[in-house]
Structures are given as C-alpha cells and as structure tokens.
C-alpha cells in the first residue's frame, strides 16, 4: 500500500518526469534488438552469413507478408490455438476436480496422490511416443498430451490452495455452523482462488509447450508442423516466422492471464 501511495504522489507531482523516464527505459530496451537487427542485416548484405544459416531479414519480412496475405499463418496459428484451448479446458477442469477432491479428503489424497505423482514425474515429452502407439498420431494424441500438460500444475496448485486455507477461516465457518456446501463455496474456494490462478497460468504455459512438442513430432498442420516443414525444405524464413509466432502467442496468453490475475488480486485486497 505504501508503495502505491509513493507512486501516486510521483505521478501527481512529476508526471512529465515519470513519463520521460518511462520513454527512456523503452528506448533503452529497444536499442539491443535494433542493434541485432542492424547486425543481421549488414551481415546478410555483405554475405558474411550464408543464406542457409540465416536468411536475409528482407526475405523473412517478405515471407511474413506473404504468409499473412495468403492466410497461411493465421490458419496454422488457429489450428494450434484450437488444440491448446480444448486440451487446456479438459486438463484444467479435470485438474480442478482432482485437486479439490484431494484437498478436501485425506482419504482421496492417500489413495490417489502417490500414483498421480508417479505419473506426473514422467515428462510430457516422454508420454508422446507411448501414446502414439496407443492412439495413433491424430487429433486425439495432441489433445491428450496437452491435457496432461495442463492437468499436472492445475491439480497440484488447486490441492495446495485448498490445504493452505487459513485455519482461522475454518474456525469462523465452524462457529457459524456452515454446512459442508457453504464451507466449500463461501470459505474454501474463495481462499484457494489465488492458487488456482497460479495453476491456470502454469497449466496454460505447459499446455502451450506440450503443443509445440507434440506438433513437432507428429502433425500435418499447426505451428509446430510449420517449424518441421520449414526445416525440411530449408526455408529458414518460415522457421523463424513460426518461432516468432510461438513466442508472440505465448506472450499474449501469459500477459492476459497476468492481467486477469492482478484484477482478481485487487478484488481480494479490497475484500480484506
């Protein structure tokens, strides 16, 4: 709270100065990318870099423009996004349910957690070949892999959130003679929400990473496929564009969740 007031005073008193400082920071941050781009450009122009190592930036821009104009890029991004959203939605719901069940009941925890942890121990990438034998390389494979990626962090964080509910709240609930349902809805779930949100963020990040992995290994469309295909054809401009698209989508998803999380935290603060 104290920090907030200080910035508020600053913003009110020296708005232009804060603004200038921020602009300076932004410009400093852009210096290195600009320098790298210039270096890349010069190196390609002078032929210091072979075309097979790093294509000329102009080619990359042209390829990007072409892929945007033809709708190819949007198409592949759409395919990947659809997979991630479906897989993530399934994984998050399952994880939420499992986390709540394990968090509320010690019996369920005792039965399920050891097996769950053993399964979680094997990296998502490890499951892919096994699942390929079981379900083939179709859409099911991708959804399962992404679901697994989202499921693990979601379960563990929800579980931790429910177990970390302050005993004081529970005492209040006892004193008020809440029913089980009231306890869950009015006390436990609201208190666990920040943890659940952490789970959602990690879950989405893992889902996105798993998607890239599974699309690299087995896919005929999507961003991962674009990477593999560009690599095979030696179209490095395509590879670079696919990498950028993966980064940008990841950034947007993470940034969006970050903002939502902060909104929720603000609600929590005002509540207290």
């Amino acid at each position, binding site marked *: 709270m104290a920090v907030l007031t200080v910035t508020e005073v600053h913003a009110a008193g020296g708005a232009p100065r804060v603004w200038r400082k921020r602009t300076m*920071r932004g410009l*400093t*941050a*852009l*210096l*290195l*990318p600009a320098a*790298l781009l210039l270096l890349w450009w010069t190196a390609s122009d002078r032929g210091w870099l072979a075309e*097979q*190592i790093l294509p000329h930036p102009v080619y990359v821009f042209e390829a990007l423009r072409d892929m945007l104009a033809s709708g190819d890029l949007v198409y592949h991004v759409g395919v990947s996004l659809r997979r991630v959203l479906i897989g993530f939605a399934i994984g998050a719901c399952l994880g939420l349910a499992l986390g709540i069940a394990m968090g509320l009941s*010690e*019996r369920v*925890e*005792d*039965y*399920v*957690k*050891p*097996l769950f942890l*053993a399964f979680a*121990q*094997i*990296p998502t*990438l*490890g*499951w*892919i*070949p*096994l699942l*390929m*034998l*079981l379900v083939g390389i179709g859409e099911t494979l991708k959804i399962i892999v992404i679901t697994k990626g989202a499921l693990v962090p979601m379960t563990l964080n929800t579980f931790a959130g429910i*177990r970390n509910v302050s005993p004081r709240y529970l005492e209040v609930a006892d004193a008020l003679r809440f029913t089980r349902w009231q306890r869950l809805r009015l006390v436990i779930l609201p208190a666990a929400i920040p943890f659940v949100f952490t789970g959602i963020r990690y879950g989405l990040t893992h889902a*996105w*990473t798993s998607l*890239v*992995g599974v699309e*690299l*290994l087995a896919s005929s469309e999507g*961003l*991962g496929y674009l*990477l*593999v295909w*560009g*690599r095979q054809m*030696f179209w*490095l401009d395509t*590879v*670079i564009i*696919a*990498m*950028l698209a*993966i*980064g*940008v989508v*990841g*950034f947007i998803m*993470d940034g969006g969740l970050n903002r939502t999380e902060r909104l929720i935290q603000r609600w929590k603060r005002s509540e207290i």
Partner: protein
Amino acid sequence: MSGTTSTALRIRRGITLPLLLLVVWEFSSRTGLVDPRFLPPLESVIATARRELFGNDLIFDLLSSLARNLCGFLLGAAVGIAFATVLALSPLAGRLVMPTFNGFKQISLLAWIPLISVWFGFGEQAKIVFVALACFIPVVLNTYDGMRDAPADLIEVGRALQFNARQRFWRIYLPSAMPAIATGIHLGLIYSWLATVGAEYFLAVGPGIGGLVIAGRERFDMAMVMVGVIILGLVGFSLNRLAATVENHLLRWRPPRAA
C-alpha cells in the same frame, strides 16, 4: 499432513491403486482382453528390460544421456550465472539486455530445435547447445532477481566500508543471491533433463535413452517404449531429489524459512 491417520494405513492406501492397476494390466493381457501389442504382459516388459540391460547397451545409452545432460547443464549454468551477474550489477546493461532476453524467453524451448539443427547439425554439439540453452534461461532469471534483491542495508554497509567492486560481489551480492541461484540451478537441472530427452527425440542420432524410446516406437515395440519411458521418469526423479538435497545442504546456514 496430520497425525490422525497412521503411516502404515497411508502406505497401504497409497499402493492400492498402483497394485490394482498392475492386476488389471496382468489380467487383461493374459486373457487377451487387450491386444498385447498395445499392452504387453508384465513379464515381456521385464524381459525387454533385461535384454536391453545385458544384451544391448542400456547402460551405455543411459550414460550417454547423462553425460550430455551434464555437459549442457554445466555450460548453461556457468554461462548463465556469469551473464546474469553482469546484467544485475550494471544497471545499464540490465536495462539494455533484460527486455530482449525476456522476449526471447517467450519462444518455447522446443521451437529452437529446428534452428539449432541447422546451425549445429544433428550431432553431439547441437544436443549440448540445446541442453545448455534450456538450463541457461532459468539460471539467468533467478540469478538476476537474486542479485537485484540484495538487501539495501547490506549494500549501504558495503559503501560505508568502502568495498571495491570485487568485495561487493563476493561479500554482499553473491551470498545474498545464493538461495535464488540455487533455485535457478535446481530448475536448470530439471529443464536440462527435459531438454536432453527432447534433443534425443528430435536430433535422433547417437546413443541415448530418448533414441531408445523413438526406436521402440518405430518398431512398434511397446515393451521397449515402456522401459525407456520408465527410465526417463526415474532419472528425472533422481536428478530432482539430488538437486533438492544439494540445495538444502548448501543453504543449511540460511535461517529456516517462515512457513
């Protein structure tokens, strides 16, 4: 979690599901309920494990993977700590480089593989570079944060005692960043194992556990895939435990965390 349930009971509960799973597995593969190609009987998995262990070079594959993992990890951690230190101790360098670094970080790790394979080929070099990259990112992030969060009062004391740059680094920044660095290294170790698996999948040349799994898949040898996947999990688990133990041991001087 609580003392109400006895340990014995908890263990009994914990092994119920895995045992049940094994029984169902054994039953369905014996009665032919499930195609044994999809779910090979337990003994054929064990037989495959034995064959790979004694007949083929499972140990050699495992050691190759571990060596790769270790090389990449050491490289990534060393370069990462040095890089982050420079960025943290020089505000200008930090402001110049960190935004770009954070941008690059957004590109998920596996997406680097095609480019790395173009630049470094499919051999050992490419794999180690990839593993090092995987380890580099968490090490840099944590080391940077740790150094930046050095307590202001300590820095002031250093100023009062007229520490030079080297003394400031060794006596203030490094010790106070130690826990964060340890976290970074721990994460780096986990990531580097994932990256080793990834590198062996996609740059499938040479011995390694990942290569074994891929070969098993290509031959439709489910037992072999299972053996490989179990080893992947066990190694990851052991590395994680090892890192946690080392971390606790190195940081035992730290006052116990307020829980």
